[in-house]
């Protein structure tokens, strides 16, 4: 469903936040550390640390429902994808470069706004055995960039 532009965007140095919910509509969330496109872009994988994301992982495991927002700090361009079939899979250590690449691209985005690099790297520090991946098929997607187009459905891939 993602066009090429948005597919590139969500894999670049953007802030990633993954949300789920428990019974009683109680939402939960955690920062994502990388994004991977699977099955030719049909499915999305979000890498995140178990130690920070225990609650949202449990919510996702029970409901399968997930929302993930991607935002570029320097432009506020924001995209949100939602799915109802999310599951948790092991993180393939061979994909660690995805995280390194994400952090390296995210750092200058945040440093440009006045935050020290050391802080950004601390925020996204991890141990590989702590990382898991939430995989889902986007069932809807929205442009959430502040401005006149906020809330519009994303253009579908051709």
């Amino acid at each position, binding site marked *: 469903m993602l066009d090429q532009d948005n597919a590139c965007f969500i894999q670049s140095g953007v*802030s990633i*936040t*993954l*949300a*789920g*919910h428990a019974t*009683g*509509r*109680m*939402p*939960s*969330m*955690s*920062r994502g550390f990388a994004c991977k496109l699977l099955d030719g872009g049909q499915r999305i994988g979000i890498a995140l*640390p178990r*130690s*920070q994301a225990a609650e949202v992982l449990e919510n996702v495991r029970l*409901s399968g*429902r*997930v*929302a*993930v*927002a991607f*935002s570029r*700090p*320097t*432009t*506020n361009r*924001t995209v*949100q994808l*939602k799915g*109802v079939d999310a599951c948790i899979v092991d993180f393939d250590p061979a994909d660690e470069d995805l995280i390194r690449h994400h952090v390296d691209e995210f750092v200058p985005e*945040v440093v440009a*706004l*006045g*935050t020290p690099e*050391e*802080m*950004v790297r*601390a*925020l996204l*520090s991890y141990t590989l055995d702590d990382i898991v991946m939430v995989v889902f098929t986007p069932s809807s997607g*929205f442009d*959430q960039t*502040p*401005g006149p187009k*906020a*809330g519009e459905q994303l253009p579908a891939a051709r």
Partner: protein
Amino acid sequence: MNVRLDTLRECLEGIIPGHIVTCDPAGMPNVAFLSQVEFVDNEHVALSYQFFNTTRRNVLAGSPVRLLLTSHLTAAQFRLSLNYLRTETSGPLFERMKAKLSGIAAHSGMTGIFKLLGADIYRVLDIVPVAGRTLAPPTPPINCVNALRRATDRLASCANLECLLEKAVDCLVKEFSIGHLMLLMHDEARGCLYTLASRGYPQSGIGSEIPVGSGLIGICARERSPIRIGFMTSEYAYGRTVRDSLAAEGKLDALETAIPLPGLPNAASQMAVPIAAAGRLLGVIYVESVAFLHFGYDEEDALVAFAAHLGLAMLHHQQADDPLEDPAPAESTPLPATGPTLTIRHFAANDSVFLDDDYLIKGVAGAILWALLNDFVKRGRTSFTNKGLRLDSRIRLPGVSDNLEARLVLLQRRLAERNAGIGIEKAGRGRLSLAVTRPLELVES
């Protein structure tokens, strides 16, 4: 709640946006980024409402709310559980957030897009730290609590208003390490603030005025609330912008415009703190810096407490400076006037006074000076009392809260800056003396 909100306020400066998650009635979660979270108290935060979006729909439909906050200093993250209470669309909190958001918008290239529609007040139900590596917080540039203690100690040694105001400004520079500041007094009758002292500008701007309600200083005065901005924004530049808008509204006539308001043209951080006591606004402390985020919540707290202390002391000294019924001291013999004649021109329409065609001051301070100089020229009088000035029909002070002492300090400073051969000085409690060293010619226009 194990973590107190007032210990993590750096997360609320808008450097790293908060992440807010909600859930719709059909059970689909939603994520949004928040430009601004404002500390209200340890049980409440206010979130900026800028757009009617999915988050707002979900909140109004009864969704629980979770918020992820991140410290830009330590990388510490906190998850908050919130319960929506109400939305405010005016008042001190709204204005504080509107001003701050203007700075955040300018910093993130969103001027004109980020616009505060309301301040959503939430009760904080829970704060949980998120696991992860954190950094030691940087050493703060000053210890605000100690600076406050030292500053209030120093104010306690003052015996009159003039000393108090001088020392207050000195404390802001020396104890709080503030390089650029103004102390403005409130003119209740005219609905404006006039600069009584400043530091860190090429021109002092003493006597310059700003209307209550205009710019950062004026809004602070109107709302009686501290207003703090961490990033440069043209929306709250007060000098030229404010004057241009007043000119467009035809309100400039009533305002002191001959004396330019001082101020940094490129201030990134600005903070205005009201000085109030006994339910009255007495003035405003304004501080600024070219560095962004120079003033944080701690500096705001310290200056608010300092201003509260200063306000009570000002009120005390204004009342204590009322004249006593003791006999007037003997008139001192005026010094022999030498040098070229100084022509003093007075325009009765607005009590403006010019020294040799150079504008000095207008309004009440102008009327006071004109009365003093007339008594001096006609009767050789150099000694005056506050009580006498209050009763003087030529001066027309505006009632009980006349701020006479502050107006005298203003006049004294304008005369000292001009250094044209006229000076006034305190001569004991409730008394002042006039010193003239040049021959005078008074011209009523």
